[in-house]
């Protein structure tokens, strides 16, 4: 988050703290995409992710009077969003995962005669990713959360530790177990990955 964007956020937050709903809507427009992405990654369900995005912003709106700008607004909102997602995941339990949304499979495949894109390669990539996400969302929630935050969200151990309220060692061991479990779940489809690895090699 660059400083310019943060300064813009702070201006909007100040206006929002004065009660301007338009400023809040502007904040929503700026940040709802990545909040939705975060929720989608954590839940795997676009409907739930949409609800959680709304809930996260409602919660942020309620608490925005207490945001003093000590951390970047995105950091603060990220924490709110993660907390909302975890609460809702716990409340709603396991829900069906819509992998097509996660994979962007709603996008049309390239045309067969398009020489710039290898259709076969595209299909293989989609299949590989589908298998990968299926394995991830079959993991127990505590392993999945750590894995998603680390691998997909790119958060560090320390950040995950803070976000989830866990010790650093617990985060590492959970991540270790999550990777191990992921490997075991990918065993039946390892050819998808190994063939790709051999091609790259």
């Amino acid at each position, binding site marked *: 988050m660059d400083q310019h964007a943060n300064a813009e956020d702070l201006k909007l937050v100040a206006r929002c703290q004065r009660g301007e709903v338009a400023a809040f809507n502007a904040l929503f427009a700026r940040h709802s995409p990545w909040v*939705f992405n975060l929720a989608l990654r954590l839940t795997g369900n676009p409907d739930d992710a949409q609800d959680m995005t709304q809930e996260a912003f409602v919660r942020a709106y309620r608490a925005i009077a207490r945001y003093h700008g000590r951390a970047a607004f995105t950091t603060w909102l990220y924490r709110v969003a993660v907390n909302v997602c975890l609460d809702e995941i716990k409340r709603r339990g396991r829900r069906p995962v819509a992998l097509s949304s996660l994979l962007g499979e709603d996008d049309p495949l390239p045309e067969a005669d398009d020489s710039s894109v290898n259709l076969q390669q595209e299909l293989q990539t989609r299949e590989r990713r589908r298998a990968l996400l299926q394995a991830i969302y079959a993991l127990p929630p505590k392993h999945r959360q750590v894995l998603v935050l680390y691998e997909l969200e790119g958060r560090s151990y320390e950040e995950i530790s803070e976000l989830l309220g866990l010790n650093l060692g617990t985060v590492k061991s959970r991540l270790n177990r999550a990777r191990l479990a992921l490997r075991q779940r990918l065993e039946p489809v390892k050819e998808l990955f190994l063939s790709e690895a051999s091609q790259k090699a």
Partner: protein
Amino acid sequence: MNCKSTLARMSQYQAQELPEAVCRRLEEHLAQCPRCRETFQLAAAASRELRLLARAQAAPAVSLAPPHLGRLRRPRPAWRWSLVAAGAALLALVALGLQQAAPPPAPTAVRPAPSGLSLPAAPSSSKAAAAPPPRQAPAGDREELFRSRPAPRALARPQIATPAPPPSVEGSTATPVGRNEPPAAPASPAQASAPPVPAGYGVTPPPAAGPPPGRVNAAPEPVPTAPAPSTVGGALRAAPPGPPPPAPPALDQARPGPIAVIKEVAPALEWRADYSSRAAKTVSPLLKAEAVRVDPGPPPVVTVLVTSREPGEYAITTADASLIVTPGNPPGEYLLTIPPAAVSPLHLTVTDRRSSARSDYRLYLPPSQAKRKGNLPLPAGTVDALALLAERERSVVLAPDVDAPLAVGHPRQVAVWLQVAGWRLDRRPGVCNATPPALK
């Protein structure tokens, strides 16, 4: 290195967290063992694919509409709290003026100080004698007065002579006085000639009056010396020594934010504050929760300003914590900051807002703790009280078991600020309840 240890360290190897020597041995094993090599290739490919996937997932395809905020209260600007506080102060002044205009009631008996308590001398006996006694309100009036009081921000209150130490006190020099016990004989002429016990709990005595009845050493008005101690993430932070800082801000000013509506769900039975948090708060009927503020956080904090109406022990119960305030006799005013997810261990800080009144505060620990540590006498009335507590105890472990009661008493009936703050990981896995440092 064998296959088992290789597989166990594979994740760390991928994250490049292994020492050089271990890496070398692991690589040697991978070069020799095709099965482990295949597993490693699979893990590496999965990790690589995840990174690519993270990059590929950009903005969502769905278009999101902003939430409907119509039902929500707008965030209030901070200056409104100042206006509210000023209005409340004005109302209090008007009420005081009306009270002063009313004729004083007939004097009643005063309970004396127990023998063994060393009460400091009165500031001026003639002043005390000339002081008009506070109005003795009937029970109904008392109730009405209590309910109609705008906000208990002024900590001065009528005082009486006899302290009522908490029942759990061991070795206290004060004579315990039961709630229904008749008043004991006067202990000193000064106390015997003191004005009657006021009935309007929480009502600030007239400013021109001398010391409060039965409280020969009390300052005429509360002189706030130290702001309420701040706790960050449960850590105790001592107030710096030096000249007395300005008074702590009124509750409404201290934390801008919405005040939850307290609903009296069962009159005379309980006070319940319903708010967005899952942990509803129930306050004993003998307490009046003037304001409940919930900061959903992070970190979540519930702030309650509670005024007790009668001496005794009152439980303030949250979903996870049970605190007992023993305010003595007459009641005191407390600012309790209680995280909804209860804390263990608790960090307790006690400060006195009256520097001029020398009094023996004691921090009463639960019996199990007190046996080992003994109660902590606090030379309150100075700004160093908190620092001293912090220096001596760093953090006072009150009760590892959250159900164990915490009792705080003060024999001299001077209001104290009590803050309880701390953190315990919530039972819900994966929910952060600690004050976080800024993320990258």
